[in-house]
């Protein structure tokens, strides 16, 4: 069953310059009960607008939204934010500075509930919510006396305390520093898995999307391009945009020279500026077709001497090596074109100007529409 249904959602901004360019263009998707659905896309792609439409902070130009089977936005209907069964966490925390931690979290119960709760009921629910985010010891503190990460937990506790039908997260981790972000990712994931709350998560961070999502909706220019699992998005991208949205990749344009189909798998030989490449392909391709070939840097192997009996080996020259701790980021020149490879730092010995041989494993070379 789907907890959130979005159908043909459109939103246009009133602006004199580009009046007809929709911010959100005919977007439809479902968020299933208990899943973490991530909307991933660059800034300005319309993902936050969708979230704000679901929250009722923006009235969509057209389309329908239902939460828990009840229509909240439609042609003749618009339910204001405060009557929607939601919890919302903002990028900038939006923790009220004039209240304590407890008062912040109690606010939805005191002012947002249809039924009046007794004092001790409120206290129990607030404390349970604070325990969930490990802030029970900070209940009486001033909200602004907390660190950024703690404030974001207060915001999360406040969003969860009403046990809403859907939790909406608007780039909740992007204001935190890198180490804290990693930690919060785990905690957020754990809480979500434990209470199985339906969650819509909006982010531009690919690793956040890959690590948190049950499913990912990939957005570009107001359009929902595809809905897929994190694994498929990374390992079998369907477009150049999808490939780069799930991580770094190098792209070469090429022409299909031959197609082999052994009944089990289909592969093709593609002529590219860096050389002939053998690649697996999921979709049908024809000889003579122009395609894009994508490879992830972490899949490109670098050898000091040419390996024998392997396909897709190309002669290269190392132009720069960056030591990153666990890995090295290597730039190479292949037939006058730049190529990039990420290799484990352990055992790496080569330096700039060394000649080398790159290997692009066949099942890691993706053929995409040009």
């Amino acid at each position, binding site marked *: 069953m789907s907890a959130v249904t979005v159908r043909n959602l459109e939103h246009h901004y*009133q602006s004199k310059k580009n009046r007809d360019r929709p911010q959100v263009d005919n977007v439809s998707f479902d968020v299933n009960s208990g899943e973490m659905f991530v909307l991933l896309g660059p800034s300005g792609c319309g993902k936050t607008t969708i979230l704000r439409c679901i*929250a*009722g*902070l923006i*009235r969509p130009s057209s389309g329908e939204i239902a939460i828990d089977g009840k229509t909240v936005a439609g042609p003749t*209907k*618009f*339910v*204001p*934010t*405060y*009557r*929607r069964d*939601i*919890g*919302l966490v*903002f*990028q*900038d925390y*939006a*923790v*009220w*500075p*004039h209240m304590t931690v407890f008062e912040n979290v109690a*606010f*939805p119960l005191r*002012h*947002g*509930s249809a039924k009046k709760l007794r004092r001790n009921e409120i206290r129990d629910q607030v404390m349970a919510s604070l325990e969930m985010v490990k802030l029970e010891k900070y209940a009486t503190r001033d909200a602004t006396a907390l660190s950024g990460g703690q404030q974001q937990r207060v*915001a999360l506790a*406040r*969003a969860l305390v*009403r046990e809403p039908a859907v939790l*909406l997260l608007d780039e909740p981790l992007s204001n935190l520093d890198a180490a804290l972000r990693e930690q919060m990712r785990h905690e957020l994931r754990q809480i979500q898995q434990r209470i199985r709350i339906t969650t819509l998560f909006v982010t531009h961070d690919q690793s956040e999307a890959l690590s948190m999502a049950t499913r990912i909706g990939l957005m570009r220019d107001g359009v929902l391009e595809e809905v897929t699992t994190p694994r498929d998005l990374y390992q079998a991208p369907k477009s150049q945009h999808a490939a780069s949205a799930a991580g770094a990749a190098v792209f070469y344009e090429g022409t299909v020279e031959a197609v082999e189909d052994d009944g089990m798998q289909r592969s093709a030989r593609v002529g590219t500026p860096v050389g002939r490449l053998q690649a697996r392909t999921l979709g049908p391709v024809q000889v003579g077709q122009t395609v894009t070939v994508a490879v992830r840097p972490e899949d490109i192997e670098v050898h000091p001497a040419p390996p024998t009996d392997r396909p897709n080996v190309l002669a290269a020259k190392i132009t720069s090596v960056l030591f990153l701790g666990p890995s090295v980021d290597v730039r190479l020149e292949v037939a006058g074109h730049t190529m990039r490879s990420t290799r484990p730092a352990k055992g790496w010995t080569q330096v700039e100007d060394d000649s080398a041989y790159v290997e692009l494993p066949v099942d890691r070379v993706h053929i995409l529409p040009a």
Partner: protein
Amino acid sequence: MTTLTPVAPPTGEAHVRPAPRPGVGRRIGAFAQRQWLALLVTLILFYLIAGPVGMLVASSFQQTGLSLPFGPTARWTTQNYSDVFTSSKTWSVMGDTLAYALGALVLATVCSIGAAWLIERTNVPARRLLYVIVVTGIGIPGLVYGISWNLLLNTNNGVINQGFSAVGLPQFNIQSLPGMILVEGIRMTPLMFLLVSAAIRQMDGTMEDAAAASGARPLTTMRKVTIPLLLPAMAAAAIYQFVTAIEAVDVPLILGLPGHITVLSTQVYLEVHPAIGVADYGVSSTYGMLLLVLAAGPLLAYQRLISKSSRFATVTGKAYRPRRIQLRRWRWPAFLVMVCYGIVTFAAPLLVMIWASTQPYFSGFSWEGVHRFTLDAYRSVFDSPNFTNALWHTLVIGVLTALFTMLLSLLSSWVIVRSRSRTTALLDFLVFAPHLIPSVIVGLAIVLIYLVVPVGLYGTIWIVVLAMVTRQIALGTRITTPGIAQIHASLEEAGAASGAPPWVVWWKILLPLLRPVIANGTLMIFVAVAQNLTLALMLVAPGNSVLATEIYNFWDQGDVASSMAMSVILTAVTATAATLLRGGERDAL
């Protein structure tokens, strides 16, 4: 005043929780509410502003020699304009007005920039104390200031002039154009100083360091970086003050009238309060039109200037403070100059005011006078029902004006800051427009409206409140708009997402967060209203006199002691409020 009551709850249908019926009730969500609010606020402001302006324009084309505009004998005419423009007096009045306003402006600018530079950018000692010395003058009403300076520097028995004579120096006549410029100039300095020093404080020090690192010498840095960066703020402050100088009647009435110097504001006032004969509202309105044009030009330029510089810029972290200039051996001389400035501009007027209030008759300062010390003036003032009424009216009008103005300002600013609709441009202009209308005109036009339209407001305190709200709304929104802009919209949205309806969001989130802004704004408006003689004098009738008008009347009748006793009391009230204000401001920072 009835027009203001519908604003009371921030959301129209707030208190009647609509039953979950389909259709309209359901659909009045966040957006509809915002639009209704925008419409309501726009209508109220339009009423407050368009009414007086329309009345002024209309009555300037009315022949009103013997009656009110639109009265039984009044008819349409352009006679007022030809009278005014062919009168040689008009041009001398215009000349004096410009000389007075520009002279005072130059004096205030020099004093305030000097003081701001010393306090904000050098290592002069006891900067906190000096800051207080410069700013405290705000607590003295312009009217009281004018009278005090008259007692210090009139040629008959002025205290300082007595001193000049004693050491053989020539006397200075305060009842002259230079005298008026001197008094108005130093009266405007504290506010000008606040505006200028705020601009200097907000400047990012890295801008100057970057110039220095590029090889620019200190003077070049000042000429090419510091001054251009501060220019918009300085020009804005100067234009704002220019209108302050031309709109008020207090200093021109007290110092100009005895010396036969008339400026436009006093001309407007005198046409409706002639020493002999009947009021001529038509000619008064025509002079008012001249004043309106004189004020509108610079203020429209000011509005452009303000909108170009980032008006809604929110606090963006701590900017790096510029380095202070080391004064070395000039430190203490600079400090002494500032202290002398404080004595001359603040202590001297205050002391002469107290002195005069304890003398049966004022005859300058003398040792015999000490033996004549008496508190009779205070006794008779406190025994007089007129005084107690006036004090009560002053407080009530001050408080009511402050509250209504803040309410209207908060709602307008919220609509302006939070919505992107096209109606906000109109609203943005409407909250600024009262700046275009000098006090004396607001007073004149509102008197006319409620004389012509008999709704029983004339002669009540409500007509004064209405006029004061009209005049103060621009100041109010200047405080509330940046205040609301600093509160991130997500704090309100988090309230809505927590299930709180709009009125709860206002009551539990917005208003508590705005508390320092509201407190400061309320106090600032209260002080401005209590000190405002101009509007009160235009609107006064036996039933609604305030302290300022009582002080002026006693002074006008020659009862210096009573006038000064009341001045001491009024100054105590406004200075107390101003002191609270600074405390509040410090908390807000």
